[in-house]
Structure formats: structure tokens, C-alpha cells
């Protein structure tokens, strides 16, 4: 019975989100395909979202335990994640349109060949 109610420390969730963010940065640095680089950015956004939800849960539990402070603040972390999702959707639409335009102009997706702005 105690096994069913075992708690997972929230630090583990935060560590997972830090690991996801770092993997996203590694992908951003090492991947050579424009679309995969873009996917790494989405991975970083998701890592940050997980830490937002974790802290929102911590705040919510704190409010439930102490009944102090405004309860509406406890869900603001989740609302932040909601806005991040909206912005990510807009960003994905515009970014992929830019990728299509770049592919039309240069006929390649390799980031090494898209170097017009290189010094």
C-alpha cells in the first residue's frame, strides 16, 4: 500500500527538464540539417515547459497545505506553459515557411551551405 503512494521528488522532474534542455542545445550545435536544428529548438522549449509545470505543482501543493496566499497564483505557471505552447505553434508555422522559402532559393537543407550571412 505504501508502494502505491510513494512520492517522486520534484527535483527529479527538474533534472529531467535540465537534461532535455541540454540535449536540445547539443542537437542545435551538432545537427547539420535545418529541419532537425529546428526540432532541437522545440526540444528545448519542451524542457523549459516541464520545469514550469513542476514549479506550478510545487506552488499548488504549498497552497493546499497552508491555505495561505491567493490560490489563483498557483495555476499561473501552467498558464505560462499554455502561452509558450501558443507562441511555439506560431513559431513553428513561420519557421517552417522560412525553411520552405530557403529550400526554394538554395535547393539545400544543409546548414553548412546556407552561409550567405557568414563573415
Amino acid at each position, binding site marked *: 500500500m505504501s508502494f*502505491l*503512494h*510513494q512520492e*517522486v521528488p520534484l527535483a527529479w522532474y527538474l533534472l529531467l527538464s535540465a537534461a532535455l534542455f541540454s540535449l536540445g542545445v547539443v542537437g542545435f550545435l551538432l545537427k547539420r*540539417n535545418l529541419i532537425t536544428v529546428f526540432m532541437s529548438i522545440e526540444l528545448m522549449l519542451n524542457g523549459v515547459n*516541464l520545469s514550469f509545470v513542476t514549479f506550478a505543482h510545487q506552488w499548488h501543493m504549498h497552497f493546499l497545505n497552508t491555505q495561505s496566499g491567493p490560490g489563483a497564483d498557483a495555476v499561473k505557471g501552467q498558464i505560462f506553459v499554455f502561452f509558450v505552447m501558443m507562441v511555439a505553434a506560431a513559431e513553428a508555422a513561420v519557421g517552417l515557411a522560412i525553411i520552405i522559402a530557403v529550400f526554394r532559393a538554395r535547393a539545400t537543407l*544543409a546548414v553548412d551551405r546556407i552561409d550567405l550571412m557568414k563573415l
Partner: protein
Amino acid sequence: MHLILFLLFAGFCLAGAINLLLQTHPINSALSLIVVMTSLAVLYLLLGAEFLAAAQIIVYSGAIMVLFVFVVMLLNAGREERTLGSRAARIVGLPAVVALLAVLATLILHIQGLGGAAISQGITTTEDLSRVLFHELLLPFEVTSVLILIAILGAVALARHGNGERPAAK
């Protein structure tokens, strides 16, 4: 129960993220990113964010990833060439990432008073969320819809065929 679910889906999440880096074909990377996002939805559910779990599946695993897969197929993207990339990225970037992860992990492990998450504890219902969203934060919410509209128009303008070449052709 919570522990098992957490370990299982955190494992899926990390495995998907590592697989995204190791695969050379973009479509494989896109599919492993879908695995990451769907397991993140389960983790949100474990943290009591039920609306966000649904939104994660609909918006991320649904809409955004369909867009990605669609673009990969539209552009007929092949296997990426494994070049070594820029030296600066490898020499400065990778140690910086390791340092960042180390600093973050140290900070996280030193946080005082961080609680735990147990199953069916501290669930935020959609009602709680919308009560704040549609009272206090109504203006930012409405502004977001304008942002989405601008993004759609921008995407259409950018991806329109023969963008900027039409006057020369006629």
C-alpha cells in the same frame, strides 16, 4: 505507482531525445520527437496538469509535429551529411553545455523545501485554469489570437510559390 510511471516515461523521454540526436534521417528525428512530446504529456498528467497534458498532445504531438513531418516530406529531405560543423561550436559549445548541465543539476539538488509528487494529488482542473485565464488574463489571451493570425498570414506570405520572382517572369 507514480514512481514506476515516472521512471518509465522519463526513460522514454530521454531515449527519444537521444535518438533524435543520433538519427541521420529527419523523418526518424521527427518521429522520436513525437515520442518525447507524448511522454511529456504523461508527465504533465502525473504532475496534475490535466489540461496541459491534453493541450500537449493536441498542439505539440498533433499540430506542430504534423507540420514538421509534412515539411520533411514536401521538401523530400534526405539523409543529412555528417560534416563536422563549425569548430567553435564543438570547442566552445559542447563544454559550455556540459558546464550548464552541471550548474543546473547542482542548483536543483540544493533547492531547499522542494516537495514531492504523488498520484492524484494537487490536480489542477481545467475550471481552475480557465477561471484565471478568462478573468485576470483575458487581454493577453485575446492578444495571442492576433499573434496566431499574424503568424498564419506571415507563413502564407513566406511560403507562397514564386515569392518575389513573379514580376521578372511576366
